């Protein structure tokens, strides 16, 4: 007489992989594409058959064919090879900026959040840096220090890290309010130790998510910088650079822009998806929602 049975059909049992895929489709998709891009970048030498820097003026501006899959540019260089090698610059810039900005952001953010006295100074400096639009800062830096991949990374990192710093500081301030920090103080931990053992690990979730956004923003900024001619030197193939070189021919030879644009968009998309996925996966509230 008592009704039993579940109101929801019981879910089919899945393997761990299948469960992960079902729960975090964005992480899987984003991670997958990103992995592919990393592979392309790492294996560029073997994937690209033609030297990307080899100019051949007679073969300039060819449409995509079996020989030149993505066609050639105005110097007759093979676009496919350049796009493949371009993955290196974009990914390098993306990852390196993410790492630099994260490290800088963590250092300053933790210091500001943990030590009241530093807070004012650091945050004013960050305000200052933030009030200059990243792209302008980057253009100015590039003008000052010259175009090289390293300088692009430096410029974008300087422009991006204040945001990370603010995020970390905010996290630190809220984590400091947690009772376990008081518990750690009562357990005799010193402030540096608390920062390292208690605060830092608990900022990592949001920081990682923010890092992915910085990574994607950096790739876009790199492209924009290259696009206005203030980015990586054009001798190094980068997606933004290829687009910049091809932008004039956009209406006659749209593929010159389109191929690198698709690669860039895919990569940025992948990193963004990964970030969104991570955010959902790491959100403690998501976890407590069962």
């Amino acid at each position, binding site marked *: 007489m008592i009704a039993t049975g579940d109101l929801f059909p019981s879910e089919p049992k899945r393997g761990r992989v299948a469960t992960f895929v079902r729960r975090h489709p964005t992480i899987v998709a984003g991670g997958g594409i990103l992995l592919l891009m990393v592979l392309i970048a790492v294996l560029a030498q073997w994937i690209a058959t033609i030297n990307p820097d080899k100019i051949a*003026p007679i073969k300039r501006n060819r449409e995509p064919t079996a020989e030149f899959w993505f066609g050639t540019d105005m110097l007759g260089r093979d676009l496919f090879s350049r796009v493949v090698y371009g993955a290196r610059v974009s990914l390098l810039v993306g990852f390196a900026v993410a790492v630099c900005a994260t490290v800088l952001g963590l250092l300053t953010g933790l210091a500001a959040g943990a030590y009241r006295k530093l807070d004012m100074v650091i945050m004013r400096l960050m305000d200052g840096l933030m009030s200059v639009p990243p792209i302008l800062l980057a253009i100015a830096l590039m003008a000052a220090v*010259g*175009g090289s991949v390293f300088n692009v990374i430096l410029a974008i990192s300087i422009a991006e890290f204040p945001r990370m710093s603010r995020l970390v500081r905010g996290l630190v301030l809220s984590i400091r309010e947690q009772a376990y920090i008081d518990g750690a103080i009562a357990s005799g931990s010193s402030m540096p130790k608390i920062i390292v053992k208690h605060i830092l690990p608990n900022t990592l979730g949001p920081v990682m998510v923010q890092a992915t956004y910085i990574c994607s923003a950096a790739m876009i900024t790199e492209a924009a910088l290259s696009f206005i*001619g203030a980015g*990586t030197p*054009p001798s190094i193939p980068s997606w933004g650079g290829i687009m910049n070189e091809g932008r*004039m021919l956009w*209406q*006659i030879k749209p593929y010159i822009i389109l191929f690198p644009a698709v690669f860039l968009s895919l990569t940025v998309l992948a990193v963004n998806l990964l970030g969104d996925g991570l955010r959902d996966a790491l959100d403690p509230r998501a976890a407590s929602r069962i």
Partner: protein
Amino acid sequence: GAASAESILRIKPSGDVKALDPMLGSDSMARNYGYMVYDTLFALDADLKIQPQMVEKWATSSDGKIYTFTLRDGLKFSDGAPITAKDVISSLKRWSVNDSLGQQMMTNGATFVEVDNRTFTLSLSKPWGLVLDALGKAGAPVPFIMPARVADATPPTTPVTDYTGSGPFMFLAKEWVPGAKLAFVRNPNYTPRAEPASGLAGGKTAKMDRVEWVIIPDQQTALDALGKGEIDINEDLSADLIPLAKETKGVTVAKQDDIGVAQQIRLNTIKPPFNNVKIREALLYAVNGDDFLAAVISDPSLGKACKSFYTCSSPYHTEAGFPSPDLETAKKMVAESGYDGTPAVLLDATENANIHAFVTVADQLLQEIGIKTKVEAMDWATVTSRRASKEPVDAGGWSIFISGPGGLDFLEPVGHLGLRSNCEKAWFGWPCDADIEAMRASFADLTNLDERKALAEKIQLRALQTVPYIPIATQYQIRTYRNDLSGLLTPPAPVYWNVERK
């Protein structure tokens, strides 16, 4: 309905005018601006012959040391004030400071004397054959005539801020948006000559009420704007867009002028590796202008790799002594030159597609003939300061930069920018050769064309030994414009009088 509305000509110029003062330096955009706003004493006609412009008549003393000029009657500045000999003298003095011909004129002891309102004399300490060439020169800086109050008050190193002019158009300072827009209206106080317009000479009749220069940074956007009639003229179309331009309805694609620009590889002759003349010579063998042109243009009519230090259209053009491209010889020469392996630093102004392409080709070429290279990417602004450095290449110096100055400065030996070999005073790269300098100086004294041609050839032969720079090719600038325009002139500087809408 031309009668009803104001007629406007909208032009996308080849670049922005950096400083609104055509006498300040050799910026060609400033010169183009100058032709809109100012007039000159003499000017080149369509056949590159010098014709009087503001001058009504002139005479030379028998010893060739005193010139007397009389201005046309009724000349007025745009503010209505009459143009006097005093204005002319002040303008010429200001001009001569920054112009190499002007400087030569001054070293020949030039002094100006005002005779009356319309007449003045120019006396020289010794005869000098280039007086009219100097006063009628079209390469920047051009001796434009401005009010004496402006010319006297503004040092030749500072841009003027009073834009009162003597030319067919008036500049509207109020509407000026630097970097974006310049507007001109017809100068009501200008009296054109009676002759028909020819080149930079003749009757400069402003047939449009208003001319606007609209700066559009993106080439593609500019061409689209032309196609849609948002602008009427698009100067300096990128060669790669020519096929698209040809497909665009209602648009004509044509050469801007027949002189073109002198694309060249400028070498730092005082620091290794190119202080070694053997290596420079090897480069003469290595460089094939056609290969370079192929990197930027598909249409062979848009450039010419004439093997000469003089531009292809120059009367002195000669290929005498010029080697044919031969990579093997070049390699051999480098091998024998005692090259110590110092890498050549190439300055790559990446925002300029042409320069970047040439640098890329040159880089590959140098490597092929066995010279180590290092390409440094930068913007043009950095190039302009970097090339002034006389440091060794590994201490912020340089070895090569690519430049394409207007061909006007490469027509004849005296005004020749590239051949100047007066050491420190020479153009960047500082070639140093007394022989060339002596021959250039004596060139001015010759008046006979054949003698001049012979001397020009001798200078070239000598230059092939000293190799002050490597000429690549003459490249023509392309102008596209709406089909409904007529009367477009093709002098070495783009000018917009005489243009009207059909």
